[in-house]
């Protein structure tokens, strides 16, 4: 009953908001980014926003569940490794979640790249309307920020709660768990935001520097490069950790230039488990 009332109230609020020009324009740009943009919608796979969010949220949860084995005290006792510092032992997993967050965000941005900024179709439909250019620009920016935040939260929500829960499943207070959850959420969301903003900045620079025809050609190559690079980053995430662990002895290692390592450094720093080299990275 209360849920129904809440649902009706939020629906009424949404309708009232969408009756005003600016929120309507923001919603329009958001739906343009999410839409396939194809004319024939019948045969294509159209998951809708709910389905898409569920698919993006699931891997983080599953990956966390898979780690139960690693942090189980019984299995550790059987392997004759009863005592570990879970904050250091979870380093590879933290790195994996940071990379995973960046990969999902980067791939989504690369796929929806051509829908992020207003297109010729937007110009044809919106330019004759009595809207100042800055209103159109800010509405588009708002739509991007809202969607990017929603995706970053969605991709990382399950792992932010489940991963610290798994790591501290057998020891640690509620306070430690809450801090772990907060630190994890901050680091993975910042990593997502970094990826999104980097792609967005790249797009803006290319659009400013190149003529339209050249931009379209370069854009395809760049999108593919982004996707391949992120996939390589994900597949090699397990190979990077030995180099990260060797930081104290090899501070000039090239892995310090990898963006996920920066966020791993931030993660460890916030948990008070960093070393000088990782903190500097």
């Amino acid at each position, binding site marked *: 009953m209360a849920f129904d009332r809440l649902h009706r109230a939020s629906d009424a609020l949404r309708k009232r908001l*969408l*009756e*005003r*020009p600016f929120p*309507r*324009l923001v919603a*329009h740009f958001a*739906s*343009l980014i999410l*839409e*396939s*943009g*194809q*004319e*024939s*919608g019948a045969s294509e796979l159209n998951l809708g926003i709910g389905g898409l969010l569920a698919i993006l949220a699931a891997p983080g949860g599953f990956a966390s569940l898979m780690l139960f084995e690693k942090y189980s005290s019984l299995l550790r006792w059987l392997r004759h490794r009863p005592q570990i510092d879970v904050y250091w032992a979870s380093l590879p997993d933290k790195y994996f979640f940071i990379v995973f967050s960046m990969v999902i965000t980067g791939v989504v941005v690369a796929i929806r790249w051509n829908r992020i900024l207003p297109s*010729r*179709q937007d110009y*044809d*439909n*919106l*330019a*004759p*309307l*009595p*809207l*100042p250019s800055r209103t159109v620009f800010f509405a588009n920016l708002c739509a991007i920020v809202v969607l990017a935040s929603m995706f970053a939260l969605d991709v990382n929500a399950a792992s932010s709660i489940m991963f610290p829960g798994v790591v501290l499943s057998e020891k640690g207070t509620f306070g430690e768990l809450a801090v772990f959850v907060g630190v994890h959420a901050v680091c993975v969301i910042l990593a997502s935001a970094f990826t999104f903003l980097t792609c967005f900045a790249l797009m803006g620079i290319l659009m400013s520097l190149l003529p339209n025809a050249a931009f379209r050609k370069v854009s395809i190559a760049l999108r593919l490069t982004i996707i391949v690079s992120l996939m390589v980053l994900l597949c090699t995430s397990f190979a990077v950790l030995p180099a990260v662990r060797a930081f104290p002895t090899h501070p000039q290692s090239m892995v310090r230039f990898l963006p996920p390592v920066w966020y791993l450094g931030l993660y460890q720093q916030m948990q008070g488990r960093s070393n000088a080299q990782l903190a500097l990275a």
Partner: protein
Amino acid sequence: MRTLIRARLTNREPIPAPWCQTTMRPARSNAVQTDPGSAAAPAGGIRTDRLTKLYGGLPAVSDVSFSIEPGEILGYLGPNGSGKSTTVKMITGLLEPTRGEVLYGGRSISEDLVTYKAQLGYVPEEANLYGFLTGYEYLELTGTLRDMPAARLKEKAESMLQDFGMFPHRHSPISSYSKGMRQRILLIAALMHDPDLLILDEPFSGLDVTMALIFRHVIKLLAQHGKAIFFCSPVLEVVEKVCTHLVLLRKGKVVAYGAIDDIRAKGLTPALEEAFLQLTEHVDADALASNIVAAASAPWK
């Protein structure tokens, strides 16, 4: 629209449709501007003053001056590539002229483009609509962005969808619409906010014969209601039937401007079609037609 048809059938004065709510104003007399450069500035109408657009130094439109007063329908006629679309873009505020200016109500539109666009109903040449929206959603979007109150918007959109024969298709995606259906949605979107100035760039493109006939009457009725209408078309017959005034354009320059009857009366040729051909392309239509038929009839094996 149905009201109009009924009125025609019963030969009675048509009752304005509910979405056409303006105070009836008498149409201005067909005063002729023989000198394009001396177009007077109407109080609520539009006027262009020596409008020029250069692309890479080449003139697409050169020194185009005309005015449209409330109640007038100005036909803007010219062959392909004569500068019609460039003029349309400049008077809709989508393109800045290289020289000259567009005045609305005596003020340059560049002074307050947003206010100007609020008075404007524009039907573009090409219907590049959002295919994922339904017809109703598109009207809702444009109406909301024009800051129309939601209840009024719903009422007007539904009424006009009904009149344009689009009501049964209002919840189908635009991607499934034919060219004529998309054109009808554009026409509704251009009329829904009751604009004082209508700029129609080939509005009959894709419309079937009945709908084109009906819309022709709608344009005339809107002019009677005091709207200033700019009607751009490459088709002489359509302009001749719809417009009160005419601008003939050739290679970006105005070659004739005035009331249609006056252009006819000037005696350039007996028929306006001949005048159009002489003024715009300088072609011998009969000779050219014979050449085309001869070429098509030539042996091909």
